[in-house]
């Protein structure tokens, strides 16, 4: 580590050296040959060096070129790159030609290899720094939302620092990770696999893609299919997000460029479940203090009373008085009031400041940045903060060697609030509280009342008052992380080079979880938990690169490499249960203290090769092969090879089609790949564990128990026959560009066939075990992706462009395991998200109403429907299709960007509404006194005509709610149309031309300002189980937010 720092220090010093002498200054103006207008932002570079600059708003540039170089190149996206030889003239004006073929667009592909997009046999989409910055999201990956087809991004909770679930082209694996690999500057980092949420209750923690500062990111490329990720091998089996961070540039006449980005953002709760205010606390039409239900009297028939005959024992709870009938003879103090629980939420504030310094010479560059992001959530005391420091540089040593490296140091963490199915969860406490009870009127009692000092609507039992949770049950964490790499390039000849790159990703996180002694939670006397976890990833790549034109019209690119990785994790946790002294959170303050450690280590090695052959810039052939070795598979099965083959044909290069005005560019691409993946560690043997003595109701027993330690044979049966799982991917597509690039369309069809998929299989307990790991499942996923870009208007002052992404994915779980037709992915027993053989992945599974053969409800003699005896599939979580429509309207320096995000279909279990129908607080229970006739047929097949009431008895004593009855009525369409982003920005750079300021723009961004959905609850972009495979669960989840951001970025 010390050596590493030293090298970086040297790099930085090198970068700060002055510009070399013996240069001449070249200047000029770059215009478009089309309309003769100047082009700003053209990259002007001395080939083979880092010497370069960009043209200003007036198309002008100035570049100091050392005398030994004899040419400069001009490049700009959508223009043909121009190489201009330098004579004696110091003024070089250039007119650039439109390149409708987009020939030179370069994208970053696997292992960080830049490739011309025209040469690829698969589709890659990317998002640049400007879009990332203006999306103004703490977690950069959110900037991909709606902009890239077939990428599904779900923010699991509307809390500061919550995890984000990302999925590319549907799912590939049944119980293993389905999220993409994150690669930063060629080094895979630990991203989605770690962090997240630990169950249906607890707090929403971050996953690790939140640690990177979006301001440091130059671009994010999304590698979707097997052919695109084949070189990364097994870790990228679910796709990859390749992040390229910013680097220093050599800008002559300028030693240091400074960039400053800042924004302030306000978050507001967007959608909330609708509640009734007609009826108050109690049951069966009567008020009872402390009653769990809101099935009491009509509020307008009730008054408040402080008469000692009715207001005595529970005075401190019912602070406004007892509720009595208007007709009661006791003294009254006024009418019963109702309270809005949503007053609990506050306006969240996020501030983000990022500063970067960069610069360079023709031998060295450097980049340094610092950022600070602070969020205050919509729930009181929910906070998140992230600081990042980045330093990067490179230097050439002679003509053959280049040394580069970077280090990102990050500190992130926050104070998090209990959520979900958790008696301390704030939404649970808020929404179950009767509208006649005011949670905000104090959450602590001055004296211990009936064994509690907590004031809550159930007399300090049951659920915590949300104000108590937000103030008294604290969870905080802090993470320190270093992502760094060093790279040595050796350019042996013009066509042969070698690269060695070593990357590390180390993070350590400590957390503290406090449950107050007086919490109403199920855990008597609270707890203090302290945990520490460390993750150390190492990645090493040694590569040889050949790029050679070996005959007329033939080019060969060959990459051969060797890779070694190690992923190591160690976690330690200690719990003091049963606080002796209130609010003294220390491990020595429990009646029982227990501790455990968990370790995970995986090592892998690989050799890989990538061959690209091209002929006449028209036909491209790609071949890759990779052999992996992994420690997680048993000896003899731990070495596995998988290939990919692809071809691209730019048919518009055919003599007859060349230079066609209507269709100047057309390409057909096709690829086939196999990607194999290993198992998770420690599944080849059966172990003994500390016994888990739990009955599903209570917190159970903790070992060591009364001084006795114990072990039990694990319920998970090891399997020493595991082999890698395989996914075969076929992809075909076309890219067409029409009319001077004003209209473009890309289409891709893909088909993924997963075989021998490794899954944790539930087995009948009578085998003596409840799960084992097997190569058992198979799954097919196929889909269509269409991207359309259109520029309806392009004049000197006006530009209007539209980008549309549409994707449809179909998925079928072909088989699970022998005898297994259903696999629990997550949720609650009876309300599950499952993988179901013969059905799409993520089927919602639960009880239904009994129906006749036509699907009509069967109505009993009492006029009510009847619950099924068995659970059935009730819908699929994933959407039928998704689309993003982005449009940018620009007038001179003012631009307006709108991004609509459409999710069509996809079901979600609204467990919140199901429970609130039981508690009587939901809007749906306001009709409790009305007669209602269920549509259905009776046992004789006749139409039901028995009127009933959806009353206290039906909802709470019978099967008339999501708590007591089937989940079917609470499975809702969670599709949406939303205005994901609206950005209005103004660029002042032109106005400030004469000043030292190189760039200034101001923008306003609104996120989720408008949503249209049928979902009857919070923003349906949510998930109880965070970034896990079990999506589609809303059970007292934190509500989502809409946000308003004002930002500024400044460069000088």
């Amino acid at each position, binding site marked *: 580590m010390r050596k590493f720092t030293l090298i970086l220090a040297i790099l930085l010093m090198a970068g700060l050296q002055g510009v070399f002498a013996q240069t001449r200054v070249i200047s000029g103006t770059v215009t478009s040959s089309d309309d003769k207008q100047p082009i700003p932002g053209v990259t002007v570079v001395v080939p083979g060096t880092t010497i370069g600059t960009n043209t200003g708003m007036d198309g002008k540039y100035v570049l100091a070129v050392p005398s030994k170089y004899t040419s400069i190149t001009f490049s700009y996206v959508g223009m043909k790159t121009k190489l201009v030889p330098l004579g004696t003239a110091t003024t070089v004006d250039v007119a650039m030609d439109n390149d409708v073929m987009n020939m030179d667009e370069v994208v970053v592909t696997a292992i960080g290899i830049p490739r011309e997009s025209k040469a690829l046999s698969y589709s890659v989409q990317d998002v640049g720094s400007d879009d990332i910055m203006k999306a103004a999201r703490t977690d950069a990956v959110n900037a991909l939302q709606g902009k890239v087809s077939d990428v599904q991004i779900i923010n699991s909770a509307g809390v500061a620092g919550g995890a984000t679930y990302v999925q590319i082209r549907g799912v590939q694996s049944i119980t293993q990770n389905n999220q993409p690999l994150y690669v930063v500057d060629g080094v895979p980092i630990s991203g989605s696999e770690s962090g997240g949420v630990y169950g249906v209750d607890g707090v929403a923690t971050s996953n690790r893609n939140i640690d990177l500062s979006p301001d440091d990111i130059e671009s994010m490329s999304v590698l979707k299919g097997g052919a695109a990720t084949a070189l990364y091998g097994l870790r990228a089996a679910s796709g990859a997000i390749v992040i390229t961070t910013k680097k220093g540039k050599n800008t002559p006449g300028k030693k240091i460029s400074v960039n400053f980005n800042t924004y302030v953002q306000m978050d507001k709760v967007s959608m909330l479940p609708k509640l009734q205010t007609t009826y108050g606390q109690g049951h069966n039409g009567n008020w009872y203090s402390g009653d769990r239900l809101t099935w009491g009297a009509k509020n307008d028939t009730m008054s408040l009373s402080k008469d000692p005959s009715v207001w005595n024992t529970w005075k401190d709870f019912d602070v406004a008085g007892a509720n009595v009938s208007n007709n009661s003879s006791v003294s009254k103090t006024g009418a019963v009031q109702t309270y809005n629980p949503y007053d609990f939420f506050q306006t969240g504030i996020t501030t983000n400041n990022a500063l970067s310094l960069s610069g360079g010479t023709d031998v060295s560059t450097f980049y340094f940045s610092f950022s600070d992001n602070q969020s205050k959530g919509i729930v009181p005391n929910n906070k998140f903060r992230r600081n990042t420091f980045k330093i990067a540089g490179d230097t050439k040593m002679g003509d053959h060697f280049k040394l580069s490296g970077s280090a990102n140091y990050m500190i992130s963490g926050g104070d998090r609030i209990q959520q979900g199915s958790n008696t301390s969860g704030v939404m649970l406490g808020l929404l179950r509280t009767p509208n006649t009870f005011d949670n905000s009127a104090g959450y602590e009692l001055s004296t211990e009342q009936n064994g509690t000092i907590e004031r809550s609507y159930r007399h300090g039992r049951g659920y915590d008052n949300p104000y108590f949770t937000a103030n008294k049950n604290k969870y905080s964490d802090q993470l320190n992380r270093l992502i760094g790499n060093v790279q040595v390039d050796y350019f042996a000849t013009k066509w042969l080079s070698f690269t060695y790159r070593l990357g590390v990703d180390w993070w350590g996180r400590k957390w503290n979880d406090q449950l107050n002694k007086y919490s109403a939670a199920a855990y008597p006397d609270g707890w203090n938990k302290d945990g520490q976890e460390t993750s150390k990833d190492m990645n090493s790549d*040694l590569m040889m690169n050949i790029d050679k034109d070996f005959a007329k019209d033939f080019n060969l690119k060959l990459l051969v490499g060797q890779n070694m990785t190690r992923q190591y994790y160690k976690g330690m946790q200690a719990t003091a249960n049963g606080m002796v002294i209130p609010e003294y959170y220390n491990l020595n303050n429990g009646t029982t203290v227990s501790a455990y450690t968990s370790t995970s280590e995986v090592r892998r090695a690989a050799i890989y090769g990538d061959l690209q052959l091209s002929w006449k810039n028209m036909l491209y052939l790609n071949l890759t092969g990779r052999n992996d070795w992994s420690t997680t598979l048993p000896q003899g099965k731990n070495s596995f090879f998988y290939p990919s083959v692809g071809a691209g044909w730019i048919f518009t290069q055919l003599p007859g089609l060349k230079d066609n005005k209507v269709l100047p560019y057309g390409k057909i691409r096709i690829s086939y790949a196999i990607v194999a993946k290993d198992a998770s560690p420690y599944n080849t043997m059966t172990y003994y564990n500390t016994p888990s*003595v739990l009955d599903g109701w209570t917190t159970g027993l903790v070992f060591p128990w009364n001084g006795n330690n114990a072990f039990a044979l694990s319920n998970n049966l090891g399997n020493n026959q595991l082999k890698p799982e395989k996914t075969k991917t076929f992809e075909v597509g076309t890219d067409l560009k029409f009319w001077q690039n004003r209209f473009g369309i890309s289409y891709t069809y893909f088909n993924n066939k997963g075989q021998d998929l490794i899954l944790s299989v539930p087995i009948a307990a009578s085998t003596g075990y409840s799960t084992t790991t097997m190569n058992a499942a198979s799954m097919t996923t196929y889909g269509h992706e269409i991207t359309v870009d259109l520029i309806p208007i392009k004049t000197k002052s006006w530009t209007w462009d539209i980008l549309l992404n549409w994707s449809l994915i179909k998925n079928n779980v072909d088989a699970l395991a022998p005898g297994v037709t259903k696999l629990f992915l997550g949720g609650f027993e009876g309300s599950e998200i499952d993988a179901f053989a013969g059905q799409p992945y993520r089927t919602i599974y639960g009880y239904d109403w009994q129906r006749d053969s036509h699907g009509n409800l069967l109505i009993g003699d009492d006029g009510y429907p009847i619950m099924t005896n068995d659970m059935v599939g009730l819908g699929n979580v994933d959407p039928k299709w998704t689309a993003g429509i982005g449009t940018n309207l620009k007038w001179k320096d003012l631009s307006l960007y709108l991004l609509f995000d459409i999710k069509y279909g996809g079901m979600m279990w609204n467990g919140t509404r199901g429970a609130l129908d039981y508690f009587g607080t939901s809007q749906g229970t306001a009709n409790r006194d009305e007669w209602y006739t269920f549509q259905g047929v009776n046992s004789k097949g006749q139409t039901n005509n028995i009127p009933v009431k959806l009353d206290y008895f039906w909802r709470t004593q019978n099967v008339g709610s999501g708590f007591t009855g089937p989940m079917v009525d609470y499975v809702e369409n969670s599709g949406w149309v939303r205005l994901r982003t609206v950005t209005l920005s103004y660029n002042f750079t032109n106005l400030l031309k004469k000043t030292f300021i190189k760039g200034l723009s101001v923008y306003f961004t609104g996120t989720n300002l408008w949503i249209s959905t049928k979902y009857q609850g919070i923003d349906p972009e949510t998930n109880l189980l965070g970034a896990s495979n079990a999506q589609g669960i809303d059970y007292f989840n934190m509500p989502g937010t809409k946000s308003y951001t004002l930002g500024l970025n400044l460069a000088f």
Partner: protein
Amino acid sequence: MKNINIKLIGLVFLMALALGSCKKWINTDVNINPDAPSDVPMGSILTGVQANMAYNTIGGNDLCRVTSIWLQYFQGVARQSQSTANYYLLPSDINNLWVTNYTNTMMNLKTIAGKATGSNPTYMGIAEVLMANSLGVTSDFWGSIPLSAAFQGVANLTPTFDTQESVYTEILRLLDDAIIQLSTPGAPTVDGDVMYGGDPMLWLEAAHSLKARYILHKCKLDNTAYTQALAALDGAISSNANDLQFDFYDAAGGQNPLYQFMTQRGDITMAKVFIDTLQLVRHDPRLPFFATAVGDTAYVGNGWGEVSGDVSMPGNAVAAASAPVPFITYVETLFMKAECLYKTNAPVAQVRTALLAAVTASMEKWGADYTAWMGFYSMYINVASGAPLYKEIMTQKWIALYNQAEGFNDWRRTDNVIGLQANPLISAQRNEIPRHYPEAQSETNYNPNTPTDINLWSRVWWDVAAPTK
């Protein structure tokens, strides 16, 4: 050019070297979990099994709370407990019970037995006694269960179900063998026995009591069951102090399952039937131990459909943090003796003495002040005979085995001689007290051999329906 070739070769060599190190790098020992042992001593397994049986599979909420609601000790007043009182019990409700029973309890007992075979007869005997008890509970609630094809892991993923008759044969074989093993002179000592401290003599008593219990379960099938059970009682548990029970302790993570349920869930109260029987009819001095008072001395239970929270809750005998969970007791042993004496036509004085001894033991178990009460009670008993005496034995056993799942077996095998009424608020098709647990959801899901014709009113093998009159 030559220069470059040399460098090239050098680098290719380096690559090869890196590959060469793969063998060391990819070492399958890396895949051995450092946080979980692959072998452990028998004693450490035994502790975990006993705890799991006490908390889950013998004394847990899914057995005792459910049957206590059905036998009207408790009333279910909210959520799932209310459904239980309305005779709903879903396959998913008892899944945890089934799974922990087969895995955490019985598979681990099999593991101990496997290790103890031929090496330690005491471990062997203890494992057999606990296995017999576990199989008994499992079979009594589910009838046919996997046994001969079970516990084989991946070798048999879909075990067939054995008839309850063959399960009972195995239970009695296990107990007979346990009696032999535990009688082995000079056997090595055992560790981790938190119930009996490793004393084989105490386990021997428990084995005899259990043997009598499981023979007695067959009384509707076989008239000689009473004679056989009486014989088995020779050598059975000889005092309250020798009860096979698990003692919990009052610290977080150490407490009794019903205590944890009451503090963490609630949802049940005392039932009117039990409270009224003890308070109004019998003035039973055990009531303060069985239920909490409302006010100073008043005891109130919820009737059918009542959900009041201001009534008596389960008392310290069953719901204190450190309340023990009994597996089999001296009290039950004495009641079995009284019942068998009655059924084998022993002299009535002998039956009366046996009943009074059983009731006295139950009083002493909880430290009730019973002297005065017992004076009245024995006067009443000493004139009882015939069917009323039999009903009194079973009623007293129902009281004494408060919140023990064994009471549910007694209720079924005596065909409700104590005269419990079913919940009258329930519609006609389900208005009888259930007699069977549904098959567990996970077993149905993953084992196609699971019976599909079972409902809450199915009858286990020994629970034959009384001939219709």
